[in-house]
């Protein structure tokens, strides 16, 4: 059964982002986590592995991202591969896809690559398709249901498209990106977590890879998203309610 690679990213936990002064964002108290969408990818990889298959968890990031390896390994992966370098702290999608492709091409035999539909931080939704192009393999994105053929060698995937669902088939090797609805990621049990530390981890350093290309997307600014409108407030007295509904009527939305 298939050799599966599940890609994951170690991201800022947005629950800890605070608003700084003047619309800036305060990252000083942030914690990190395995991107939620990638939990689905890891879970799906474990599901697809079947009898005799393997799951390799793969990530590229700065050395701090090593904290995510045990988490990924506790979710069903057999081994982890970590492309690690301080230079990998803030890669754009094109760079991430280039690094991952290089690592996979030369080090990880595979049939099926599973990515989350996007990352929890930037949510650019590009790495999966870009990685497929870099490897020259087909890409099926926004998958809500994935089945590996019983006899192996190919998959059937249900893609969510605007008008409904497109059910497609492709032979290995193939890359899919999965939606959060595809499965409910496990909460790893205590033994799963304790075993994780015993599983092999391969670290690939920047020097072992071809030079990183320049980023193709530049962030000019990252500020607190504001949705501020000037809110006119009303109480609950009958006059207030009447005034409120009159305002709705004036704006043409009273039905």
């Amino acid at each position, binding site marked *: 059964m298939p050799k599966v690679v599940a890609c994951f990213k170690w991201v800022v936990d947005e629950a800890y982002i605070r608003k700084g002064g003047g619309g800036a964002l305060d990252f000083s108290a942030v914690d990190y986590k395995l991107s939620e969408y990638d939990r689905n990818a890891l879970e799906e990889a474990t599901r697809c592995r079947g009898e005799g298959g393997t799951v390799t968890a793969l990530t590229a990031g700065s050395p701090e991202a090593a*904290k995510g390896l*045990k*988490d990924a390994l*506790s979710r069903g992966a057999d081994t982890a591969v970590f492309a690690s370098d301080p230079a990998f702290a803030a890669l754009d999608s094109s760079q991430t896809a280039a690094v991952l492709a290089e690592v996979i091409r030369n080090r990880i035999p595979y049939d099926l690559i599973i990515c989350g539909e996007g990352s929890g931080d930037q949510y650019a939704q590009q790495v999966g398709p870009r990685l497929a192009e870099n490897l020259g393999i087909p890409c099926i994105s926004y998958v809500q249901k994935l089945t590996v053929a019983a006899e192996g060698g190919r998959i059937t995937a249900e893609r969510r498209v605007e008008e409904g669902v497109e059910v497609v088939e492709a032979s290995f090797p193939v890359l899919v990106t999965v939606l959060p609805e595809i499965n409910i990621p496990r*909460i*790893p*049990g*205590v*033994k*799963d*977590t*304790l075993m*994780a*530390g015993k599983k092999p981890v391969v670290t690939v350093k920047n020097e072992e890879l071809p030079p990183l290309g320049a980023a193709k997307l530049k962030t000019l600014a990252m500020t607190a998203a504001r949705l501020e409108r000037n809110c006119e407030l009303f109480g609950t007295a009958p006059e207030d309610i009447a005034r409120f509904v009159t305002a709705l009527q004036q704006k043409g939305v009273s039905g």
Partner: protein
Amino acid sequence: MEFKLTEEQELIRKNMREFADKYVEPIAAEIDENSRHPAEVFKLLAEGDWMGIPIPGEYGGAGADYLTHILAVEELSRSCASTGFTVSIHVGIACMLVLLNGTEEQKKKYLTPMAKGEKLGAFVLTEPGAGTDVMAATTTAVLDGDAYVLNGTKTFTSNGPTGDFYMVFAWTDKAAGRKGMSCFIIPRGTPGMTPGEHFRKMGLRSSQTSEMVFKDCRVPKENLLGKEGAGLVMAMAGFDHGRVGIAAQSVGIIQAALDESIRYSKERVQFGNPISRNQAISWMIANMATELQAARFLTYHAAWLKDQKQGFSKEAAMAKLFASEAAMRHTIKAVQIHGGYGYCKGAKVERLFRDAKITEIYEGTSEAQRMVISGNVLR
């Protein structure tokens, strides 16, 4: 001195938090209201290896350290003190008793299913006339051929109505005083052992508590746990483990009280400002956060000592004493911060307040803890 949890401990704690948020938090109010033991949650806890964390793998446990178990009890208790307590007493007392004192046979037969969460353990010592004064117990176990016959009444048995394997303490030789009590493993359904009705309690209502009545209850000789007469020593060691668990439960309660108090005080506006801006309230919260920190480190340190295979009786008593009294102090304040809303069903702090009280009483009252500590310190 490194004040750091291992990566595994961090991950396990996070996972327990997620489990509690997902499965326990949503039903906590209901199981309190209905005094219900959530068997469906305990099934999931068993599946995740949460019911035998510090028990070695060969006996069905996860083979982790005691501190990891303590972290799990804390996180569970943060959502539901009853659920956290049930796990604590099952692992910390029932499982540990068999692990430390059982024969290979007994460990395979009783410890393994308990550590896997397939069977629930219970600790049966307290009697209507014997609480802190353990020696005033009257339940006897008389050897008759190849069995001991137990007669007597026990009370305040946690997991009484729901338990599978009961660790029961009875006099085998009253005359021998402190060396006259023995411990027996008695499976549910053994003729002559009857759980009483579930007590209607102020708090910890989901935890099932009852009397246990023994009338000519025949227990095979091989169910004697440890040596005849070693019962009290075993029980005291059992309490050491259990107390760290109660301390962890208390820490979970204080954390929940703090979370609720912070949230509410930021939302509640009086006199044009959130009440968190009032010094009276912010100081209550400062005190709560500070004592939570203290309780937490006392608790973790006691667990750490045990994992280092050092004596930890005194530290366990200190952690239990401090954390439980802090839990009561601060759940009172948490209700105060919530004002009238905190007094009503539906407010989490209402339940926390009722749950906290028992932590000052069971597994050795605060007074008993002071006796242990002073006994230790004044030697």
